[in-house]
């Protein structure tokens, strides 16, 4: 999985490309740990994210908990499969998903 980051003042946009699974989720978690301090607006761009599993969901959930304290988190450009996973698992109720 590739992780591209765009930082604009206190806004961080992270674009993911590939699979967010058991192997790649720890990599995302590590990057977020480094970058999240001082970020008030976090956007996860899933345009090129093809696949997500529970490992990815858990990283997003822990990130959501952090951002709830210091700002907000939004997810955009979610594909049909990832949306289906969010709906099936109830993640749609936890996250802010932009169309």
């Amino acid at each position, binding site marked *: 999985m590739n992780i591209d980051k765009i930082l604009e003042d206190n806004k961080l946009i992270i674009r993911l490309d590939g*699979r967010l*699974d*058991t*192997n790649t989720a720890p990599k995302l978690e590590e990057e977020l740990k480094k970058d999240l301090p001082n970020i008030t607006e976090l956007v996860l761009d899933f345009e090129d994210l*093809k*696949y*997500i*599993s*529970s*490992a990815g*969901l*858990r990283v997003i*959930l822990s990130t959501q908990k952090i951002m709830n304290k210091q700002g907000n988190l939004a997810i955009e450009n979610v594909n*049909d*499969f990832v949306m*289906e*996973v969010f709906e*099936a*698992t*109830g*993640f749609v109720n*936890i996250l802010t998903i932009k169309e």
Partner: protein
Amino acid sequence: MFKRNFNILSKKYNEFFLPTLLISMAINITVIVETIIVGITLGSTNLAAMALVAPIFALFAMIYLLFALGGSTLVSVAKAERKNDDANMFFTMSISLLLLIGVLIAVFGNIFIDNIAALVTSNETLAQLFKAYVSIFFMGAPLLFIIMGMPFFMRVDDKPKLASTVVIVVNIVNIIMDLVFILVFGLGIAGAALGFVAGALVGLIFIFKYILSTERTMHFISLSKCKLSSIYDITSTGLSSASGQFFMFLKLTLINIIVYSVLGAPGLAAFAVCYQLLSVVFIAISGISQSMSPIVSIFYGEKDYSGVDFTIKRSLKIMITACIGFIIIFEAFPVAILNLFGFNNPEYLTVGINAIRIYSLSLIGTGITFLMLFYTQAIQRKTLSFAISFTQGLLILIPSAYILSKVIGANGIWISFLVAEIGTIIMIYFATKLISKRSEGKFSGFFLLGNYKDIPVLDVTITGSIDDALGLSEKLINFAEENKIDEKIALRIGMAVEEMAVNTINYNSDEIEFIDVLSKIGEEEITISFKDSGIEFDPSKHSSEEKESFENIDVLQKIADDISYARLIGLNSTVITIKK
């Protein structure tokens, strides 16, 4: 990458093989040792009385094979099909029937003991000895049936070592107590019978250990919940093995008549030796066949045909190798063998050497037909299984022994055993061809394996590594897309595989070596079957303590349309279904 490697199956087979071999050895060796003890301590008249009881023992064996082997086979199949209620019903009915028939024998056997004695002998001395010996077995029939029958269920419940412990302990205590009761207490032939009862009582301790175990997966249910039709199912399944005992008794009687008419006493003695040699070979034949049986029942029930293929072919290789080993020994050392049985007379030796050398040639065939008898029983081909028992035991052997003895002479009798085995194998070949044709290709080959016809199948083994789990996830997504599955469904399949495999790897603190994954794309749904030898874990019933948990299995439960689980012979078997 990810080729199916049958490591899990291979290990399971090995776990079953030695204990099952030991059971077979314990039973067969005890018969020989007990005969020697009675012969030495009590003399030949008592031995003759023991011989008169042989048909009663054959009947007892028929009964516990009919209900225990029949019932345990059905339990295996029911568990593989996730029909736990049926499995419990077959378990309950089989044990209940064994107890009921045991009680009936205990009551009526002793009421009619004089009539039974009169049937077997007109000699008053032998009749008294017969009654003294058999009355104890009649009284102990309920105990005997439980002791001999319960190990079949214990093996199906992944307790092959405990099952073999029961049988070994029963037989060791039997031998020791035979000596105590006969030599110390002077109980005569009744002492030999009481020896078995003493052994059975000790064996009962281990049976109770199993009954009280929390790991037991078969449970007793109320008889009112059991269908009467299950009696037919149990008996029809066990019939081929049980009838084998009956045909053995008939075969012995008829062959003895033919042998005596052609060769006289030397021929009878030679045949007796051949029969004893067969008892030794049967330790291996029975051990191999009964190891294979529960594994095949379960894997065939789960439609894991490559697993079945591996198991039966492995069993066949071991069988043929073992039989070749025995043939080499018997062909090379017939004189030494005959000397062991007290053959010194030159005429007896000549007949004996000839008999052993020609008779031995049939052993490979015997191994194959016996294996196929158990195999067809395990895959629920009851009619074919019975046909094998009947053909091998009587249909070809007796007529060919009679005809060949007239045409060739004495050698014709010994050759007829080989003819019977070859004839039975030919019968099996044509019968399986007919069944295959009638099934319109659904089942094929000598082993009547199912085939997946037009269903795309991916049958692989992964190691217990996260990389392999994820590699398979990607492979399965590609496989699904290649077979025109909608992309979203394909990704869901890949996700299901990742969640299940990763959970299995993480749940087992001791490393999981392999996981077998069999995926099938059906008309309306995709099924993914997982098998591993790790800690017992039911993903269909798992629930996290946390309300909103996104652990592997919690997410799997939300994205899969169905998850079914069974613990089968110590393996976790999970089937995940995703609808198209």
